[in-house]
């Protein structure tokens, strides 16, 4: 078990480039004549690279999410939909104002009609 730990430590320092030049040369010399070790190094290299890469991707993804959150997303969506005419965009932007104006218009008309029919009561 301890021996295996030792070998793993060795391999990890080898594949992550933490060995001194001398150590590395020695390791590679041993490696040349040891097929079992070669297999272990290959496996460990594959496994560690996957771990490192998963970590790097997660960090990159965080960074991209932060950038993404600073995008003016509504504006971008609007400019992506060519089927929306300028009139539609104006309508979307001013629909509340248009609704208020329209209801005031209705109110004005009904008041006018009201006074036309029953107006004599006033004055």
């Amino acid at each position: 078990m301890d021996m295996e730990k030792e070998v793993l430590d060795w391999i990890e320092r080898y594949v992550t480039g933490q060995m001194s030049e001398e150590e590395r040369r020695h390791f590679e010399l041993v490696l040349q004549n040891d097929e079992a070790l070669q297999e272990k190094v290959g496996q460990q290299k594959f496994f560690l690279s996957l771990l490192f890469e998963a970590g790097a991707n997660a960090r990159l993804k965080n960074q991209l999410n932060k950038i993404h959150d600073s995008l003016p997303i509504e504006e971008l969506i609007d400019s992506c939909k060519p089927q929306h005419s300028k009139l539609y965009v104006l309508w979307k932007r001013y629909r509340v104002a248009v609704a208020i104006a329209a209801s005031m218009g209705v109110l004005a008309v009904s008041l006018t009609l009201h006074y036309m029919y029953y107006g004599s009561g006033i004055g």
Partner: protein
Amino acid sequence: MLKKIINQELSDTDFVEGLKNNSELQLEALYKLHFPMVLQFILNNSGTVEDAKDVYQESIIVLYNKIQKGDFELVSKLKTFIYSVARRLWLKKLNSKHRKTSPLRDFEESIPVEDELLKVLEKEEHFKILQISLEKLGQPCKALIEDFYMQGLSMDDLSEKFGYTNSENAKNQKYKCLLRLKKIFFMEFSKENTDYNH
């Protein structure tokens, strides 16, 4: 500062150089430059804003890793590469969701990226197995492995965080965890019947 970079209209070569050197500013500038293109493509091909975000980020990660590995050559415009990868990833998602597969509405020219896609899918598969293995590993091993190998914390940070008396203890614990994770991983891996030797 960012505005300045965008206004200077960085060339593709500048971006590749910037991403190679982990420049956050250039990554941000590149991200902002091409997102509208992918958003337009996805929104007009039965996708949502969230789909566009996922597909775009995956494409940027593909590009980033390729550049970091020194495996990227500017044979087409960067824009074309990003569009092509995003387009291919989206096509794959559309097919797997059995959504309508009418011809895609295109907004840019694209290049074949089948090799790229295969690599991405294989990698995704490996990440999935790793994730499953980490879940099976359980705590505190999972956190220990994630902090050291994935977040890049030092042995001293680990001893403090996990309450080991010294970094030698933390190191021993880390090795035990790594050994167990490796065992679980390669067992799961052989279940999937894939080969790691390429």
